[in-house]
Structure formats: structure tokens, C-alpha cells
């Protein structure tokens, strides 16, 4: 089964780009539910600058999966949540994003 990647990004256009990139990498993009529990996924692609996106991490029923951050702010801004395995600053290339996700899944 192809790994599922939850995309928590507030900007619709960026979200679309991320979905396409994730798909091209061979994973399944999953949209973030606006309320209620979050379905189990294999990784989260998160904009930590968005409070809505960050709060999503508290709505997982089971353990929070590995988080890849893609942010408008640098790492020094201190927004990186616990469980984050990679931190990229926007605009990040599809290649860099691919490397980060591949390192999570090991493929």
C-alpha cells in the first residue's frame, strides 16, 4: 500500500502544489479535515506557522506520525512541533520535499 501523507497547509494554491508533488512522488495525499478526529496517516506535511495546522496534531486519535515542516519562517523562529523529522523553508523545491519524505519512508 502506498504511504498516505496528510497535507496541512492553509494556502489553497500551495496546497495544490503539495498534493501534486506528493502524488508524483508516489504517495497518497490526504486533505486535512476541518474538524473532528484526524484519520491515521503515515506522515504529515505541515505549515507550522498556521495555528490551525498545528492544532491538527492534537486531533490524531492514535500516535502522531512523523511530521515534515514546510514553513514561511526559518527553524530559529521556534515553531517546529514535537515529532518533526525535517524542516524546510518555503519556497522549497519538489526535489528537497521529495528527499525529506523519502527519508521518512525509507523509499
Amino acid at each position: 500500500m502506498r504511504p498516505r501523507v496528510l497535507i496541512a497547509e492553509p494556502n489553497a494554491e500551495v496546497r495544490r502544489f503539495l498534493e501534486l508533488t506528493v502524488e508524483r512522488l508516489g504517495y497518497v495525499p490526504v486533505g486535512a479535515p476541518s474538524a473532528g478526529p484526524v484519520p491515521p496517516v503515515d506522515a504529515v506535511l505541515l505549515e507550522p506557522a498556521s495555528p490551525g495546522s498545528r492544532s491538527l496534531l492534537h486531533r490524531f486519535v492514535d500516535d502522531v506520525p512523523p511530521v515534515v515542516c514546510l514553513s514561511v519562517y526559518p527553524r530559529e523562529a521556534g515553531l517546529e512541533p514535537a515529532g518533526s523529522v525535517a524542516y524546510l523553508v518555503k519556497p522549497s523545491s519538489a526535489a528537497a520535499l521529495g528527499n525529506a519524505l523519502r527519508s521518512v519512508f525509507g523509499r
Partner: protein
Amino acid sequence: MRAVLAVKHHLMNRRRSLVPIVALAGLFGTFAVMMLTDTAGQIGAIGLAPWVGLFAYDVGLAGGLAAAGLGLALWFIAADTQNTSLTALTIGIRVTAFLVFAVGSSIVGRRMRESDKAHRTQMSLQTALIDSTLDGICLTDVRGNVLISNVPLRRISVEMGLPPMGTVPERLLAIAPRTTEPDRYRRRMREIADQPMLASEDEFEIQGSSRVFRGYTAPITDADGRFTGRIWTLREVTADRELDRLRDAFVAAVSHELRTPLTSISGFLEMLRDEEQTLGEEGRLYLDVIRRSTERLQRLVEDLLLVAQIEAHRLELVLATVDLDEVAAAAVEAARPTAAEKEVALRLEVDGAPPVQADAHRLAQVLDNLISNALKFTDAGGEVVVSVIRNGSYAQLAVTDNGVGIPLDEQSQLFSSFFRASTAMRKAIPGTGLGLVIVRAIVEQHGGTIDLESREGKGTTVTVTLPGAPEAVA
């Protein structure tokens, strides 16, 4: 301070008007006692002389001599009336004694007045000096009572709403409820009050007014190291904090509002590249323009944010032992396509530079900026040389071009934000005027120095000197 001086001045004036009267009263009083008790022989000249001395001390030499004459005359009268026998020797001794008293006391008096005047001049200079600063300054004794304070301090105290009475710690503690963080403020003030030897620097904001003050206090000790009081300084930093706030708002806006659309632009542009072959030649040309412009915009955003970080003194380095040769080689390789396009020869010379303790990513930024500048300002057929050498225990990096150069009178401004040399403007060479600001900040943060040598029409050399890593020096 001024009040103390005024009171002292007043006292001195009063004393000066009173002393001669007291001295004269003393002279005549002593004379009266001699006459009434018939004791001219017993009391004699010695009873009158101190009054002459006192008069001379206060009035001066001429007045003193006159008082001596008066004193002698009174003594003669008393002695004559009471038939005290006088010889030439006793008269001579008395006259000499009166004169010595008059002259000596007047000299002492003058000296004292001069030294007092010098002291007052010194005090008013000191007052002028501490009043001339914009910072509020005061000195307190062991218990916290104000000994000296300057005008700005009294002004700031009123503006902060400090009560007029009490010791300084008490007065500062009184405004705790009006600060934005009363608990922290109160704790700090108590610490200062309880720990005499504590030096402290704190910032606090007054509620509702958004006015921010920075206070500093340090103990004063005597020669034996005993606590004798405190010095306190206060400065309003509202404008600085407002600037910080604006800078943070700017950084947030640039980060958020520019990086977000740039993400989708560059992302979709990357996807479009995969379908480049389906576009016609013209379409590919347009795509190239979009790509270059997007990269330029990305660089601008990164530069703006980096300059904001530098100005806020928040540039942080990730240090490791770095081989400058490698960083330079990578930067030169990355710049080869641009050099080829401009038909400028690009050469790298390395010669045993020591490794440096540095942030490799930031050093690469330094090199990229310097090489990019050199290429931009060098015409086709020119040459750019990047050299990395050892200079004692230092690693020295130089980027030399034989390009347009920078006019001498503009060289000092090159490291100011957004400054662009007239040679760049004339030739319409693109740039933001941020590159060298970033370069210098990174170099200085590494403990290094940067020098620029340039002659218009001949070329430019920028030299960066970085200290060698400690183990490499040893």
C-alpha cells in the same frame, strides 16, 4: 544637587556678613571686660588678638590691619587707663603679634575662599556634565536615599509616575502595579533591594502608555570593597522597541506574504519544466524569463530577511571546522555558467589556507555574493580571480576583478543597506545594495575583517580575513 549648592551658597553669604560684626563685638566686648574688671594687665593683648584674627580671616588683609590697629589702640587705652607698665619690648612684641595674626589669618581666609570657590566650580561642572546626558542618573547611599540626581532622571521619574518621597527602591517598587509585568518587576526590585552587590539591567513597560524604560543599577564600593551605595541609570527605549516591533512586523509580512506565493510560483514552474518540450521555442523563452525572475525574487526575499535578522542582531551561526578551499571551489563552480555567459574568465587559486571555525552555509553566501558582484561589474574579456591563502594564523580570501571599479568617494558607503555605486547605476547593473551588508555582517560575526580596494576603470579587490580554527593555529 542644585538645591544643595544653593543652600551652601546662602549659608556662606550669611556667614560673611556676620563674622566681621562678631569679631568687632568680640574686640569691644573684651575691651569692656578689661575696663570694667580692671584686668588690662591680666587679659592683655592676647585677649584681643583672636578677634583681630577672625576679622582678618573674613575681611582680608587691609581690614585685618585696620582691626589690628584698633585692637592695639584699645589695648593701649586700657593699659594706659589702668597704669599697666609698658616697655618698648612688650609694645614691640604685642604689635608684632597683632600684625602676624592679621596677616596670617587674612592669608588663610583667602586660601579657604579660593579653595571653596574652586570646589563650587568643580561641583557645577560635574552637575553640568551629568545633566548633559539623556540618561537619568542618580547615586544613592547605603539605605537608598538619593545623594545626587541629574535633570533627566527627575524628568523621567515624573514621567514614570514615581512618588516624590522615599528611598529609590521604595519609589521604584511603588509603580509595580502600573508595569505590564508587575510580578516580575516586583521580584526584580526586591532582589536589588535585598542583594547590595547585585548589578542588574532590566526593561519594563508602563501599562497603557506603551512607554518602555531600561534601568541599570550597580553597587558602589569603597577602597576596601564595602558597599557604600548604588548608581542607577534610566533610559527611555520606547522608540527602539517600536522599531523592533516594526522590523518584526516587516519580517513576518515578507516571510508570509512573499514566501507563500513564491512557493506556488516556483513549485508549478518546476512542474511546468517537465512539460517544457510540449511548449514552442517562444514558450520556452518566456518560461526562462519567468524562472530567472522568480529566482531573483527569491534571492531578494532571502536577502531582505537576512538583513532584517542582521539588524536585529539575530544572525546565528552553526559553527564547524570548515575548509575554505572547498567552499571557494564550490562557489566558483556554481558561478561558472554565469561567467561563461558573460565571457569573463573565472579562476581559483588556493595555497594552504588554514581551516576556519565557521558556518559553511554562511561562508558560501559570502563567496557567492562577492563572486556575483565581481562578475556583474566586469565586462566581457575581463577576469575574476578567487584566491584562498594563508596569512600567518589567518585564512585570507580575496576576490579580484578587472572591472569597472568604484569611485573613491563612494567606497565608504558600500556597506550601507540599499546603497548602489554610481558605476552600477550608470550601467544599469541589477542589484539591491544588500549583498555587501550581508557579507560584512557574516564576516564580522565570524570574528573576521573585510577590506575593499578599488580604482575606477581598473577593478576591485575584496579581501576577507578569518581567524584560523584553534587546533589549526596550534
